[in-house]
């Protein structure tokens, strides 16, 4: 009974808080640009509206167009259940769950990609090709980050890996993971969520033909994924597992806020990279993680 309640509360928290993050980022961007900007809760309104709306389906699509977003949303949610929250641990924790976490996000990517290719549009094809190609480098970086945490903690379980501080390599690991966060969540400088030119988009080009409730599932899933990465980054660097629950939640909230501001600032101050440079930046993120791994290795060997 307690477990069920625990899982329910966690799910509610993840689901309800996730759409806040894009709102915060947009607010920061508006603030830097000197605009008033949309309300912080804009995504909640959008989701509620989309959920009630009818759907325009392309004549080309198969059931995968609707199944894909649903499966992807579930996969991201399942990944959220594996991520620990400070000393409270994860809803479900076992040896090897770190790898399941990575592969669940890959499964979400796979489902969305198929749902997008379903429309037979060249734009969706373009977006999917870019998304899955860049994800190869991001995956290398995130596996390296997990190896770093594994070297530090001697464990393959997220709850144990994320409890202590990152040690000497913290700054490197944070830089690497921040790069992965930006790439995986389609933010500037890898992708521009605000662009209006389909030729230059990655993630947004994938969902051009989605509308109504499936689009709501995609947008909510994307917000949840952003929150997941922000929490992962925070916990990889700060020793939240060693604090009391209240302190940990406070620190986590503050850190996620800092990350949101950072993403907003990056987005305001940088332009999107040319596509041929994206792999270079992702390789840099991978190298940051690799150096963090070497530092952790040096620290762990007596």
């Amino acid at each position, binding site marked *: 009974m307690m477990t069920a309640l625990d899982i329910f509360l966690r799910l509610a928290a993840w689901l309800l808080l996730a759409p806040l993050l894009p709102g915060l980022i947009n607010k920061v961007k508006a603030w830097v640009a000197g605009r008033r900007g949309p309300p912080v809760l804009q995504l909640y309104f959008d989701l509620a509206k989309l959920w009630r709306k009818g759907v325009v389906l392309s004549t080309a699509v198969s059931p*995968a167009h609707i199944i894909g977003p*649903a499966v992807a949303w579930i996969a991201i949610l399942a990944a959220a259940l594996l991520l620990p929250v400070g000393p409270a641990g994860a809803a479900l924790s076992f040896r090897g769950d770190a790898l399941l976490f990575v592969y669940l996000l890959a499964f979400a990517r796979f489902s969305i990609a198929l749902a997008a290719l379903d429309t*037979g549009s060249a734009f969706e094809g373009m977006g999917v090709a870019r998304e899955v190609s860049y994800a190869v480098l991001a995956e290398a970086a995130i596996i390296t980050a997990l190896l770093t945490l594994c070297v530090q903690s001697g464990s393959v379980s997220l709850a144990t890996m994320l409890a202590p501080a990152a040690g000497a390599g913290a700054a490197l690991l944070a830089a690497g993971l921040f790069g992965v966060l930006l790439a995986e969540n389609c933010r500037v400088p890898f992708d521009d969520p605000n662009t209006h030119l389909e030729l230059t988009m990655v993630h947004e080009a994938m969902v051009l033909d989605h509308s109504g409730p499936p689009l709501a599932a995609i947008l909510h899933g994307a917000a949840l994924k952003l929150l997941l990465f922000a929490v992962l980054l925070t916990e990889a660097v700060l020793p939240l597992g060693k604090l009391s629950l209240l302190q940990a939640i406070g620190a986590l909230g503050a850190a996620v806020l800092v990350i949101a501001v950072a993403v907003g600032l990056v987005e305001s101050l940088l332009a999107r990279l040319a596509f041929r440079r994206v792999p270079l930046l992702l390789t840099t993120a991978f190298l940051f993680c690799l150096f963090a791994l070497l530092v952790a290795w040096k620290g762990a060997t007596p």
Partner: protein
Amino acid sequence: MTPGWLLLIAGGGLVAGIFSAFKSPRVWLAATLAGAGAGFSVAVWMLAGGATWDWRPGFILGVEELHLQLDGVGAFFLILLSILGGAATLYSSEYWSDKNHPASAPPGRAWWNGMLLNMGFVLLCANGLHFLIVWEIFTVCAYFLVTRERQRRAARAAGWLYLAASHVAMIFLFAFFALLAARTGSWELGPMRDHPGLAPLFWLALVGFGIKAGIFPLHIWLPSAHANAPSHVSAIMSGMAIKMGIYGLVRFTGWLPVPDSAGWVVAALGVVSAVLGVAFALGQHDLKRLLAYHSVENIGIILIGLGFAMIAAAHGNAAWGQLALAGALLHVWNHGLFKALLFLGSGSILHATGTREMSRLGGLWRAMPWTASLFALGATAIAGLPPLNGFVSEWLVYLGLFDAVSAHGTAAFAAIFAAVALGITGALALTCFVKVCGVVFLGLPRTEIAAHVHECGWRMRLPMLALGAACAAIGLAPVLFWPALATAAAAWQPALINANALPSAPLVTLGAFHLALAALAVLAAAFLWQRVRQNGVSRAGTWDCGYAAPTPRMQYTAGSFAGIITGWFDWILRPQRHAHLPKGNFPAHADFAEHTPETVLEKVVEPAGALVLRASLAVRHLQHGRVQSYVFYLLLGLAALAILAVMGGAK
């Protein structure tokens, strides 16, 4: 009923199939399926009991005493052989029927049973000479299956290349078994780890079995043979025949001592095969050639696991090595199941459209919903995604690698490298199968042939359904298969590994998680579907950025989809591009074509072969028909012998 009798039924069924292949396809089907069923039951029996069946009837067959043996490792591979053999047999009864192929189907059935029978014997033989004989027979049977469509030049070339490569492998295996027999004084096979002098023979086995398994630089025969064989043959070759190479490596690394560097070399070859196999797969436009390159990738994943198991065995038997071994063995099953499923699926596409060229297809899901959904299931499994079986085995290998890293031992650095390579391989495989499913099944038909297709019949659908169910079963309830894995791992090196004390992996939790994930995904999809229907659906054409007259030819093709990644691998893929760029103010004609060659074959093996031929031609000048010169050669030869005799200090 003892294991021996069951094996007799299995062999008898297959032999009866050979005799009925020409006269009665129905009797052939029944006999072969019965044989596969008996093989399956005996393998399950041996794995469940953990005992070894050993049979020496005491009669001499070709100067050696017959000795058959079925232990955990053999039974582990025999299960896969029985399942794939049974499934592909049923499939071929419709796919390669007498009606469609009156001339080639009946002998094809006979060769088919011959191949299955002899692969079974390879798993049973405990005598080196007999092992070589049945290995050769199964290889030759496979040649006749690959060249079922002899009228096509590509099929003949593929068969020829396969035969040549297989016999290069055969030379190495001859050397391996002959030297083994010479050093031990007997052709008998069995555990002989206490003869350290046998260690160098491992390199011969690695090349011989490696060519069969399709390890990266030795894989040259594999893509064209798998692509040009009939699809049920591709399924058994990719699912089982290349696993016979893995069987050989597992068997003889378990029975014989190996050099110190063996584990490192196997793991390194695994990393190379995994990453480059999938990179080449991304460059392919031919569906079956693409699947063939994925075999190279998955063999790489298996070798990473096996290599680290060997490293661990050489360095104090660390527990992580046993996890890696369990992952590698489970991946043998998994790859067999999903790759056979994918090849059978590609067969039903070929059956319906007559083309393997992906960029001529598209939108097939409408006419072929069964094939499309089962192919998508296989694609999810091969991309190593939860909740299916591919993830479980890769996860076990990962656990072994991560444990090796946190153990800080000699293998830690190699394990870091291998884990990152495995991650990259997984993401690349995902990309490749998004490409395949998207280009072939989704979107709109790109050509007329893709617009008029039909679903395959139930005898082709049922085997795919069974293989898909097996993939799902291993993914959703992996713990049920753990005892079989433990038995096989313990049979690898019984002195080292205890089946009851294998390091545990939380497979129960993982299985429960997978089950919940699958159930919730189905629920969420149904719920969203319901919501969409309730809100109302209106239909329109795909929004092409306002373009007024979109055509299906504007869709992304296989080549354009993979372009980014094949660009990263240009250095090894060496794609050939032919472009006519649009010129002038009113360009009339423009085209672009890209083709990925068989780099290793065309850039390394063929030039080397040409060099040998040129050298041979030069030597041929010695042979010219002038008697005077021949007499001179004779004198020279005699003189050389005389000098040798004198220099040798004849006593």
